[in-house]
């Protein structure tokens, strides 16, 4: 058994999976960085009192939530070039950028609905109390609504974030070489090794460890929010 873990095959597979997992992590964090703020903007749009804006936003959210992410990735990557609108940068970086854009838009739409639920869940009386104290709309949002909203949205957000960990594997449809792609590559051949199935199943270890870490961190965040009770 120990022989196996020190064998050069295991080392080669491990370093390939590591490089794939780095791409997975990159995609994960860029998506969160982009989608968390964008989702808030979209949620304002879908709560706007300006009717056309509200309808446009909600239709957009409907389209994005109503179609598979994998389809959005394929369309976003291939259609611009086929229509001669623009070309994504050549090589791996272009694929990464396209996939990040698709993920950010998709996840922002899901986040926006969670934000909306969190904001609308704060009792109206609290905003009215703010108005009585002479606070501006922005002050009410920052000091009264926002923090209570954050507390409310942590559990549903944790759900989405853990789904995101695993959804990153969809990126391989346009040949982004994330960890599942790397695992699969040893079936057909990679670095002179061919016909191995176990690297594919071994990628589960990466996902389990990472989602474990994310779960613990989000649990801590939830604990921190308890003083709002």
């Amino acid at each position, binding site marked *: 058994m120990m022989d196996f873990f020190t064998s050069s095959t295991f080392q080669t597979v491990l370093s390939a999976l590591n490089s794939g997992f780095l791409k997975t992590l990159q995609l994960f964090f860029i998506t969160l960085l982009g989608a968390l703020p964008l989702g808030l903007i979209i949620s304002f749009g879908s709560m706007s009192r300006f009717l056309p804006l509200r309808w446009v936003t909600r239709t957009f959210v409907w389209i994005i939530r109503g179609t598979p992410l994998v389809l959005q990735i*394929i369309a976003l990557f291939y259609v611009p070039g086929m229509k001669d609108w623009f070309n994504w940068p*050549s090589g791996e970086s272009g*694929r990464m950028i396209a996939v990040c854009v698709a993920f950010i838009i998709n996840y922002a739409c899901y986040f926006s609905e969670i934000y909306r639920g969190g904001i609308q869940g704060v009792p109206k009386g609290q905003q009215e109390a703010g108005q009585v104290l002479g606070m501006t709309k922005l002050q009410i949002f920052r000091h009264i609504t926002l923090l209570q909203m954050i507390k409310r949205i942590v559990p549903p957000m944790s759900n989405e974030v853990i789904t995101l960990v695993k959804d990153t594997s969809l990126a391989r449809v346009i*040949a982004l070489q994330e960890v599942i792609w790397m695992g699969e590559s040893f*079936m057909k*051949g*990679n670095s*002179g090794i061919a016909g191995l199935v176990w690297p594919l199943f071994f990628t589960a270890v990466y996902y389990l460890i990472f989602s474990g870490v994310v779960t613990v961190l989000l649990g801590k965040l939830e604990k921190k929010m308890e003083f709002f009770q």
Partner: protein
Amino acid sequence: MKRIASLLLVLAMMLALAACGNTTNNNGGSANNGGAGNNVSDNAGGEGGDTAESDLQYVKDKGTLVVGITYFAPMDYKAEGSEEWIGFDADMAKAFAESLGVSVEFQEITWDYKVEELNSKAIDCVWNGMTLSDDVMAAMGTSTPYCTNYQTLVYAADKAADFEGLTSLEGLNIAVESGSAGEDAAEALGATTVPVQAQANALMEVSAGTSDAAVIDVLMAAEMTGEGTSYDDLVYSLNLNDTQGLESEEYGVGFRQGSDLVDAFNTFWAEKVADGTVLETATTYGLQDAVILD
């Protein structure tokens, strides 16, 4: 009421947009075909006028030839511990790029999307032991064939007796790569096909017992089964092209439809056959019997 009305309006708008999409699609298609026609006649006339449409010029201006590949020994692969793409196709692609005066870039792609990769200009050619099937030739501008191949049947070694000397696959569940030449062969022989994403997945089907056998390229079967692989319990035999009474299959390079890179490639290839480079490179990778030299 107001809400229902606006919802209907939104739906109508979306349908209208979708319809627009379709028409532009058609226009795009015919424009491309027109371009293809122009290119062909330009090339036939020797001097071309319409350089804006020239794919060769596009690649030269860009300075890189992006070659779409999948990992496929001995065509495009990496030696253990090396990051450099080598193989018969990879080496010749490097030489072709050099002859055009551009650098070469290898891009791994998902095989199902090779046509979309080409048309969206994410890659400039597919050069990966690609069988010149009717579908491929309809969707791409293809080179003259440069190598021969045949489809073979892969099955579990302990069931070898059931498969040897078979002339029909009727009543068997055969795993094949979706859209591959193997799929056509299995269907022609009366098999019930199980289309999967890649030839590697087809082998996983056989190994797991979820399919009776798989039909894949013989070059790949040699690489992926036997000693030192996860499939040392699988064996392959039968030349299915013989069984069907068909000619052997041929490999070619795929470019965008109507691209003038096809002619550039064919000229380049004829030169390299004449000066012996093709045979020499093929011999390096054990393909001296498969490569086409006339």
